[in-house]
């Protein structure tokens, strides 16, 4: 029985890990772009981006999941009912209900990009103006100053809040079951219904503990690696 459960849970956990990793792959760079937007000198861009971040951070991830999953399908349905030659509406008509996993990924990536962007912004804004000025006086360009001087200092500053947020993401992936993504808790819960077994549920907890434990070790390593300088 133990083997059967382990196999079932591993399958669910595979989806969890996949969702987790893919969310990071998209949200980490997207967050940087969003943070640049929220610091933009062009006021309309800045306020548009900040309002978007405010909405995403101010509403439950669960709601965002459901919206991302259902809304495109509904728009497509509405568009198909229209009798029009409008190219845009015809394009909308091609929208079908999203794949569950893709919908979850989109919602998670957008949500976490917004959280990450605020951490990036805090980190970037905390670097003293003097660093940029020293670069400028030495004839470096702005991108050179950012990538060769500022970035590593920002990374050092944001590692603690980022590790918090990323560990929260591990656990948040379980929300994906809201739109029927077969993740690890679901696979554990299935045994209550089918076999009347409770322990697989606790077993799923062990998967999360191990996952978060590994991440904690990785982040401690990075922190140690960057401890040779102080910002």
């Amino acid at each position, binding site marked *: 029985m133990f083997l059967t459960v382990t196999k079932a849970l591993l399958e669910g956990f595979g989806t969890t890990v996949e969702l987790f990793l893919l969310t990071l792959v998209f949200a980490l760079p997207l967050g940087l772009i969003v943070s640049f937007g929220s610091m933009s000198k062009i006021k309309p861009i800045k306020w548009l981006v900040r309002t978007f971040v405010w909405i995403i951070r101010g509403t439950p991830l669960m709601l965002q999941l459901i919206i991302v999953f259902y809304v495109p399908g509904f728009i497509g349905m509405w568009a198909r009912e229209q009798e029009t030659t409008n190219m845009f509406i015809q394009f909308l008509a091609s929208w079908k209900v999203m794949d569950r996993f893709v919908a979850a990924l989109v919602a998670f990536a957008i949500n976490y990009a917004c959280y990450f962007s605020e951490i990036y912004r805090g980190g970037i804004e905390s670097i*003293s103006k*003097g*660093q940029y*000025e*020293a*670069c*400028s*006086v*030495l*004839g*470096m360009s702005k991108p*050179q100053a950012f990538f*060769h*001087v500022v970035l*590593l*200092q920002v990374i*050092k500053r944001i590692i603690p809040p980022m590790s918090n947020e990323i560990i929260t993401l591990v656990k948040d992936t379980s929300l994906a079951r809201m739109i029927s993504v077969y993740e690890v808790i679901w696979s554990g819960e299935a045994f209550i219904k089918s076999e009347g077994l409770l322990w697989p549920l606790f077993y799923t907890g062990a998967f999360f503990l191990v996952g978060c434990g590994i991440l904690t070790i990785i982040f401690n390593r990075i922190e140690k690696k960057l401890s*040779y*300088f*102080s*910002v």
Partner: protein
Amino acid sequence: MSILEVKDLTKSFGSTKVLKGISFSLEEGKVLSIIGSSGSGKTTLLRCINGLETATAGKITVNEKVVFDSNITDKKELKALKHNQQNIGLVFQQFNLFPQYTALSNVTLAMKLAAKKRPDYKHNKKAILEEIDATAKKFLDKVGLSDKLNNYPCELSGGQQQRVSIARALAMNPQILFFDEPTSALDPELTGEILKTIRQLAEDNMTMVIVTHEMNFAKDVSDEVIFMDDGVIAEHGTPEEVLVNPKNPRTRAFLNTYEK
């Protein structure tokens, strides 16, 4: 021929006039000290000359090359002027070293990035980088830090950090080196080593402009002294004229606050 010429320079932040028409020039190899009370615009003047701040009006010439002219409005031309600004070095009050780089790398970083644009960079990469390292070591040696090449800023005293930043500025081979209160962020017992370094540079005929509150130092290192008061040059002359026998009552009042 003067290496630095500042003409009718003004600078306002919003409606506050900070510089109200500054004109002076400096000969090559001379040391100019700028003194004046807090808020008189000394830092702003330095920042305008270095291009960290854009002046409102006036003209600045370095080694006969215009680096700022408020009559030029064409964006492309202005950009070209910025390029001439690279002949000016600046040492900050707060050092502004790059914390993640060693003393040596702090000095080499800008040179190595600039070297990438050289057409022969790909072929001669190794030789070019070695040459840059050698240059950096020469300047760190000059400021007495050849035993700290591989230390990070957080492992150095304030005085040592400031000397690294001086080496970093020197390595760019500036025609004029500016200092903005280079000893103000240091404990009194550490100011001596910085002043000694600057004295050595003066002996090597480095052209320097030094904003300082160290009156005795200004007296014996400078060829000229400017006393700034409320955005204008209130007095300009030899250290003897300005610091010992000032004509302007404002200068006298200012110097009196230092006697105590």
